[in-house]
């Protein structure tokens, strides 16, 4: 078996690993780095539970060969609350009741974060487009949409320095 040396940044830390060419990013994250917040729902890129952010884009980590993460900057759900403080998306998901079983939640939040990082004022339609690949069977998406809208407002207030996260 030939091995590749994978070097990438995961949640701010430099990671160096020997990987097999056939390994998928989802398995490296879950099994090697113990980042089990990356959820496995279908392994075919159909449910979005394994969504992470790679070089700024939301991707299904079950479709990404680990080798493709060479030199990449990766964020998972475990890395987005800084200094013990929840990310506004996490806070808004909790406060709006947007979480039920919680299995889709990490992927849903990462897709929403990738959207808000690029587009701080998304329309309802843009939110729906960004989350269309993340399936949820519990919530009917109503409170998820509301949580993302509210988080966008809070992030805007923080970045504009006109207030703080509540």
């Amino acid at each position: 078996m030939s091995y590749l040396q994978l070097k990438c940044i995961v949640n701010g830390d430099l990671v160096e690993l020997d990987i097999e060419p056939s390994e998928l990013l989802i398995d490296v994250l879950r099994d090697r780095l113990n980042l089990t917040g990356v959820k496995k729902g279908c392994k075919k890129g159909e449910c979005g539970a394994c969504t992470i952010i790679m070089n700024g884009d939301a991707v299904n980590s079950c479709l990404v060969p680990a080798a493709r993460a060479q030199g990449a900057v990766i964020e998972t759900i475990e890395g987005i609350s800084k200094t013990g403080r929840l990310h506004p998306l996490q806070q808004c998901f909790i406060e709006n009741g947007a979480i039920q079983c919680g299995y889709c939640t990490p992927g849903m939040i990462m897709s929403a974060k990738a959207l808000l990082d690029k587009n701080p004022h998304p329309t309802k339609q843009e939110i729906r487009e960004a989350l269309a690949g993340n399936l949820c069977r519990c919530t009917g998406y109503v409170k998820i949409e509301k949580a993302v809208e509210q988080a966008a407002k809070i992030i805007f207030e923080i970045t504009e320095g006109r207030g703080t996260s509540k």
Partner: protein
Amino acid sequence: MIPENIIGKSISRVESAEKATGTAVFTADMKLPNMLFGKVLRSPYPHAKIVSIDTSKAEALPGVKAVVTYKNSPSVIFNTAARTAQQKINQVDDEVIFGKVVRYVGDEIAAVAATSEEIAAEALTLIEVNYEILPAVFDPLEAMKPDAPQLHDCKNGNNIATLIKLPMGDVEQGFAESETVIEQSFKVPVQKHCQLENHAAIAEVSHNGRITVWSPTQTPHTAKNLLAKIFGLPASKVRVLNPPYIGGGFGARIGFCGKTEPIAVLLAQKTGRPVLLSYDRKEDFIASDTRHSGYITVKLGAKKDGQLKALYINAVLNTGAYASYGPDVIAVLGTTNCSVYRVPNVLFEGSLVYTNTTTAAAMRGFGNPQGNYALECSMDILAEKLGLDPVELRLKNIIKPFDKWMLPYPCATSALEDCIQLGAKSIGWERRNEPKVPVNHKVRGIGMACGTHVSNAGPWAIQYDNAYLAVQQDGSVLVTVGITDMGQGSATALTQVAAEALGVPVEKVHVLAGDTDTSPHSLGSNASRTLYSAGLSIINAADKVKQQILDFCAGEFGVDSSELSIKNGIVSCKDPNKGQLKFEEVCDLANHKDLQFVAVGRNKLSNAPPWIAHFAEVEVDLETGEVEVLRFVAAHDSGKIINPTIVEGQIEGAVLQGVGYALSEQIVYNDKGQQAQDSFHEYYMPSIKDTPEIETIIVETEEPSGPFGAKGVGECAQVPVAGAIANAVANAIGDRINELPMNKERVLAAIMQKEK
């Protein structure tokens, strides 16, 4: 009087921070030392005998630690439902872990435990099976015929697992007295739960033979009792627990999660090592329970003024390869749908039929949504024939509190009338009769449906439940219950119930659910019963603990305990000169006198009907047949609401499952007996783009049998969705489809048929 403290407050879920940060642990996230990985070999044929099976090559593969088949596994026959059903339900034991006959594509043949999932998968390809292929049947009407291929030996007729007949009054007489009679048949599809976490289990066997299983089962005690039966162990030597989180359930995990638990145990026993068996999404689709498909006929008789005189419902349900919860499901289909309207003469007849398809069992609503769709479409057909408004016809006939009905418990509360009127107002019902003028080849329609459901599992199942409540030495409270929180929010709502019952802050209460070692028996989370049943158990335990506290304080104060009361965490005496004690002071005092306040509470063996009225506005594209739900109004009476945000979330989620059931979701079989839909890609479950505007209307009642007045909610909102949408589509296009899902092809065919 309802206490005012924490009941009715939308506190955030107790566990949501863990879920939002990715730290929540689900079954397949766990790693045990020395753990092996399991994989299952499944039948490629819908019906076959295993003539021979050779596992030697698989066993020889490096890394393989065990291979199990019917040859080296228990032959105990079981049914995942059999340990919980009341005797009158006539359960059928018809399953083994691995049999010599396979009865659907996906049926289990063998399993492997290996040092990696990849090696286990490779080993499956090395197992050699010789089959004798048997004739197969996929449709229940075909399967009932005397010459159809036989799946099991049935005493009720070929492939008929159960026959059920529920009469009230004289239905023949009722139709004779009717001035208008309508009759219509409907076809309903297979729906899949699609909970986001696939089925999985980890089993560990200790040196003394005690078994521990982590799985997302909704019913740990039921799973424990079944495992004890299958493996011939005392139930006390089996522990089943959630890890603790469950990635959704919707009925798919009542009893076992597929067959993951018994197969994982078997592999762990053979290897002496912990084994994780995790299904992939395809296995979840084809080899775990589905909603029952089938055929439902409704006959309604009424006087000219709309007063109902007779109702006959006949259901032929396809239970697939094994009966599982089918006998209970068909009974619930009948009783719930015969109990929406005040009809003096009622007859329900049900046939539960085996076919060579995936086993159907419990799914949100438990038979009720199938029957409700047929009943509520029939009510609209009757209204049209009578020249009455559908809302008016329903208001004239709905069950009122303490009306006679076929259920053994009373209807003590109903706000259905309010739900219908508020819903009709919100949707703009008066627009329903406006002329249908297409705009950009799209036409709109409005429809409604109403229904009822349950708050507990009786009279169909054994329904007692227990809660253990231990007041800690610092006055905080630990509650353990055998129900599970699969995402519906029970742990939070029950925390509120315990806090209210004892008058302590929610922050001081912890509710531990889903572990058979820490809780006395519970039927688990199903039948919309979790809050109702476990809530009653907790209140009962709290009452006992409060009495212990009052008795203890009577000694401290030197008065009779009847002179004392507990309110807001303070024990006080009628005589103000005696002073008062804070809850934590009492507990500390008791601790120093070698006393802890502990109790086990029991629920009442009661049940109560929640009520639902749903209204849909749809837009039908006359060129493509596509139906879009524009707006949905869900009006609910679930008694007193403990946590409004959680209840809204349950309703919104169930409405969207109902939208999927109505418009897009189905599993169909090809002529080889293969499931044409075995992935999300093919199944068309609604995404965020399919979510209509959903308005939730809550009309509270105070149910005397419920915890602080609460009734069931979890399944309710799935019940009338398909009927409301079907009636809206009929209103839009002026024709009825009578088959679900109302996908583009079917709607377009109906439009073209009408234009001819």
